[in-house]
């Protein structure tokens, strides 16, 4: 096992963003890099890939200034033979070039295997299904995030195929490459990754929060297990450290949860959403089976988690936004308490009766949902309940979720300086503090490390005991299936109105 150890320090205007003494990458292996969002995984990877602008950030690798690293043989080799699949697919595609043009640009122009790669990533469809997408100029809304993500992955696999003979020294970075994919598509991606790795054995750095990848790797590819290294980037006493992560840690936790799963129990209904919803020229159907053969109203009950599943891009977030009155639908009917809400209900009705009172929602990106320029203590300003809560009560609520009494320093810290996990927990806490009847959680495990996942799950379970109804949408089926019984699982399907 050949390992490259990096000493990396990244500063912005004299403020240290990242500092790690020993960041290890095993050569000719799949390095799975876990850890909560915002801790510095992407920044470290970008630094190694030579993609940070030295005018923007002050970077030192192995004590050398970044410009010197950029001119080193190693960095030149990485840039020439490697590839980087970026986390945010929308902004990483040129809006003024079609996807086909972008797939055949630069060193990808002559690269072989484009068609077979695309077929696999699109689950072997008829040619026309992805051919249509290739002539699209990417926009924020079209093609979907998942499609864009697969195009970026296809670029990486094309490059891998073209450098197959000279892969020594090449490094491929995949930064959250499945963040927009459902489990099925994620598995297709992983299969293709393993297949390509098996052929040319490049160095792969796979950054992810998705711990369920572990089960897939171990379950489906036991043979290459010795070539997969799981590492978790974590903060320890204010210093970054890379620790070896034992997959057993996660698998055992899952096993325990399955064993402790509570029996089914029918509780009082709080909300009922009729199964047919029309929006943006599409009809969304809620049913009890994945194929959509048994339409059923979605019901949220007291003290119960309701889980809505669907392939990526179907409209899960759209449905919950309709339920929250944030998107106006063409047809819908929802009973909440004694009131019926429909497509004709005015937004003011939701504002006056629902938001923060009967129902609330936690959005998936804590970075977007919270005001990063607010202090931690100010996150709760303006909430309907805060007027009636003392500072001590707020501090208590924070300590409950953060498992320690918040210091004055912590309360006065700007949200932007919190870690990804802390932000996500704060995001949850802002809704939990409201005492609503229902909380909708959109990808609540997004960006969390394993410890934070466990904490959030515990917190949801504690909250359920107070009688609140929770609705979840999440790609992380492996975790939520340990919590929700089949009687509370719903599936979403979509069809075009015409």
């Amino acid at each position, binding site marked *: 096992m050949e390992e490259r150890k990096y000493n990396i320090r990244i500063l912005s205007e004299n403020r240290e963003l990242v500092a790690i003494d020993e960041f290890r990458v095993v050569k000719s292996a799949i390095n799975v890099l876990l850890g909560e969002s915002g801790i510095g995984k992407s920044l470290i990877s970008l630094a190694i*890939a030579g*993609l940070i602008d030295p*005018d923007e950030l002050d970077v030192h690798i192995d004590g050398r200034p970044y410009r010197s690293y950029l001119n080193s043989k190693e960095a030149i080799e990485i*840039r020439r033979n490697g590839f980087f699949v970026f986390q945010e697919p929308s*902004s*990483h595609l*040129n*809006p003024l070039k079609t996807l086909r043009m972008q797939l055949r640009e630069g*060193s*990808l122009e002559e690269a072989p295997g484009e068609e077979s790669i695309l077929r696999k990533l699109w689950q072997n469809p008829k040619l026309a299904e992805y051919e249509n997408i290739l002539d699209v100029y990417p926009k924020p809304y079209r093609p979907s995030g998942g499609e864009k993500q697969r195009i970026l992955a296809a670029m990486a696999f094309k490059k891998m195929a073209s450098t197959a003979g000279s892969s020594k020294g090449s490094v491929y970075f995949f930064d959250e490459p499945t963040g927009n994919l459902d489990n099925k598509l994620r598995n297709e991606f992983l299969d293709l990754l393993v297949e390509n790795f098996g052929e040319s054995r490049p160095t792969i750095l796979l950054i992810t929060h998705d711990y369920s990848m572990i089960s897939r790797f171990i379950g489906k590819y036991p043979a290459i297990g010795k070539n997969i290294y799981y590492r978790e980037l974590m903060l320890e006493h204010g210093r970054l450290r890379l620790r070896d992560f034992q997959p057993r840690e996660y698998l055992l936790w899952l096993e325990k949860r399955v064993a402790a799963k509570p029996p089914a129990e029918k509780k009082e209904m709080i909300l009922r959403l009729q199964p047919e919803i029309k929006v943006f020229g599409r009809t969304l159907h809620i049913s009890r089976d994945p194929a959509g053969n048994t339409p059923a109203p979605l019901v949220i009950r007291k003290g119960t988690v309701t889980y809505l599943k669907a392939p990526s891009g179907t409209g899960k977030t759209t449905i919950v936004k309709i339920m929250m009155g944030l998107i106006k639908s063409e047809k819908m009917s929802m009973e909440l308490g004694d009131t019926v809400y429909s497509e004709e209900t005015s937004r003011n009705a939701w504002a006056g009766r629902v938001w923060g009172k009967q129902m609330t929602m936690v959005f998936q990106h804590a970075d977007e949902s919270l005001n990063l320029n607010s202090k931690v203590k100010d996150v709760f300003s303006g909430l309907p309940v805060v007027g009636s809560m003392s500072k001590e009560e707020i501090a208590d609520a924070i300590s409950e979720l953060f498992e320690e009494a918040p210091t004055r320093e912590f309360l006065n810290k700007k949200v932007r300086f919190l870690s990804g996990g802390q932000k996500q927990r704060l995001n949850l806490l802002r809704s939990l503090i409201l005492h609503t009847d229902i909380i909708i959680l959109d990808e609540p495990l997004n960006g969390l490390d394993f410890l934070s996942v466990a904490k959030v799950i515990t917190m949801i379970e504690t909250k359920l005991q107070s009688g609140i109804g929770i609705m979840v949408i999440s790609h992380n089926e492996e975790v939520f299936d340990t919590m929700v019984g089949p009687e509370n699982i719903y599936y979403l399907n979509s069809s075009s109105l015409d």
Partner: protein
Amino acid sequence: MKILRILHKEHSSLRTRLLIHCAGILLMACIFWIFISMYEISRVESRQSEKEIQKYLDLNYIDFGNPLDRTLFRESLEIFYKGQTQRNDSLLTAIDNLRQRQFSDPSYKTVENPNGLTWQVLQKLGGMYLQFIAVYAVVLLVIYFAAQRIAVYRFIKMKQHRESYISQAFDIVTGADKKSAGKAAALIIKAFLKGMLYMLLFSPAYVIAYSVKTTIDTSSVIFMILLGIISNGVLIHTANKFFTFLTGESRKGYIQTAVVKNLNASYEWNAPEGIPIKTMLHIKHGLRSHVFQAIFENARFQFIPALKEHASFLVTGLIIIEMALNIQGHFCYVLLQQILYRQYDIAAVIIFGIFLAVKLTEIVIDIWEYMEKKKYGY
């Protein structure tokens, strides 16, 4: 034909925008028409009443400046209009006011267009307007291209991490090679000239024009065009806007993707993976395998709608030039003259003309933006 097609139903977003522009033009036309009509009515009324008063002023045996004559006139009025003291006092006050106005008000002096807005006046204004529009179009076009090149040059220089002239000169002076004093002096001169150029680009037009007035014919159209381009900060602000777009785009994710696809990314002039200096002349098509191509195209895409605000500022600059340079027979100078002579009807027509120029620019830019967007599937 293309424009007609654009107005077709399927292009509803553009149609709405064009309709808004047309409604704006129509509304403004109505406002000005009402204003001109009302002004004309009040002018006829005031001329009528002045005519009445003028009868008295035309009496050559009365000098209204002479107190004795005034008293005699007042008493005569008392004889003819006995008991109507208030009426007689008012008449005398009106006579005094008219006399004062005729003495001090410029509109009672040599007025170029004494009959207000006539067909002849409109024809004359039309000619001036065409010249104004021609100058405006030329300046706008030159600024559009020049600003892009200046911004691109500045952007590439920034990417080259070159030191400032002063810093380079400092290096030479403090370095071992003391013999290069000439080089250091040249650098300092360059820095000085650069500073002067900046000052020139920020100078209001009248400062430049007055400082060269005795050596150059400042009333020529060529000088006006030149002044329109370089003065009032228009060029530098427009170039800065484009530079902002270039910088913003260069930080976007798709540029990183282009880099990992091994597109050329060096910014050295004429280097193998760099930028051939001759492409500065045809940037749009000259850098196919360089990441800068994508940066430029995306910046240009955003620059088109931004041109609207710069066009409006450019018109402001041209108005200032025409007014401040006091150039007879120019559209905006005539506007100033008409305001001075209180010929507000003519002034209103000129202002409407200027408004129309800006609106037409906005319409052209909206159509252009729409076509560009269509090209890229928006």
